């Protein structure tokens, strides 16, 4: 999933102003995957959402000195979401590996049993089953496959709950409002001391006032 290019960045303006635009786009990307991600038949959407959460998180971590508590909370939330989606992704990657291994072993066993019957055999004696080299290997792998399916189900349920919680708490709106406030402060010219000290306000959705504007220009 390629990151969308951000338009309208001004290299001569402070980070907070430009970062607000970037973060707004990255939030948009994250939420664009939501309708498909809550549909169990679309695992690719979860993968794309994980990538989007990762991008959002890394930028919030980087710009935390500009956005204070709002940014920090956003980064922590994005990290939690990314981690959860990452665990689901691990299951989605591992399960096919296990099933491919099972299939590989079956193919080997079938070939071995076939070979034991001889080149011109008209049938295969049931005793030939003892020649299947992997006959004791399936049990653990099937147990592992069952475990991965169960784990995936539980983790996906957690994701649905978490996503619903973020929606109920208006995470996106709060973060966007906080970022906009900090960016406006940077545009209007923040207090130099506040910028150096990274002044913070309480609560989600409130601005972090740790941003100073460049003078003049």
């Amino acid at each position: 999933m390629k990151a969308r290019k951000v338009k309208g960045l001004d290299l001569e303006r402070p980070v907070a102003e430009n970062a607000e635009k970037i973060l707004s786009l990255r939030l948009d990307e994250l939420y664009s995957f939501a309708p498909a991600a809550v549909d169990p038949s679309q695992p690719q959407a979860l993968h794309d959402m994980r990538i989007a959460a990762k991008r959002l998180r890394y930028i919030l971590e980087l710009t935390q000195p500009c956005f204070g508590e709002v940014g920090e909370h956003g980064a922590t939330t994005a990290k939690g979401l990314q981690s959860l989606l990452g665990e689901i992704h691990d299951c989605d990657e591992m399960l096919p590996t296990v099933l491919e291994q099972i299939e590989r072993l079956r193919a080997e066993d079938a070939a071995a049993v076939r070979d034991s019957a001889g080149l011109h055999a008209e049938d295969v004696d049931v005793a030939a089953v003892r020649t299947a080299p992997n006959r004791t290997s399936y049990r653990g792998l099937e147990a592992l496959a069952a475990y991965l399916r169960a784990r995936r189900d539980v983790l996906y349920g957690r994701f649905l709950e978490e996503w619903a919680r973020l929606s109920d708490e208006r995470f996106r709106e709060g973060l966007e409002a906080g970022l906009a406030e900090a960016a406006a402060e940077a545009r209007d010219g923040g207090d130099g001391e506040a910028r150096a000290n990274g002044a913070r306000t309480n609560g989600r959705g409130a601005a972090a006032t740790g941003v100073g504007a460049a003078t003049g220009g």
Partner: protein
Amino acid sequence: MAKAREIPEIATARTFLEAASYAVEARTDEVFSHREGVLDTSDIEKVHDMRVASRRLRAVLEMFEPCFPRREHRRALREVKSLADALGERRDRDVAVGLLDRIGGELTDDDGPGISGLAAHLRTQQQAANDGLARALATTEVSGLKTRLLALAADARARGRAVAKRREEKAQAQAEKRERKAEAREQKAHAEAERLEEEARAIREREGVAA
């Protein structure tokens, strides 16, 4: 997992350009600080830390893309992606092998053969991925990726500071101009006040003589 290094200069940078330099410099240093021991498959956290650091570096390169010369930026980003991919290939096998080791510990001996067979298969892939990572790291060394990234950062910082200096000089010139205009207005007002005072005095004297 190593926490991202906070970069306080991001907030105090006067321009996006300058901030780009601090971000790329810090994230580049982070990536290469994890280089030591990363090919040791008995300590998988080093690969994890380097992988996360490479993702953070890639994120800042993408975020600050307009700040850098296009060709150099694209080349550096491509190489960072290749390194990140190689780290990812190793990391994915590390995670899979780790899971199988834990699962194997929970199952009975009768369940063991399948798990250990798959683990052996994945360990072979892990070694191949490690060889791939070694090649990717060698490529970054030959191409001088770290040096080039730091040079991109230094160049952006110089340009950012030049922009900020020009802006400050312009602001100062405008402030001085405003001050001069204000002084001139004050002088003019003072001169006008003196003239009016002189006129008033002359009128009073004429009235005094007439009386």
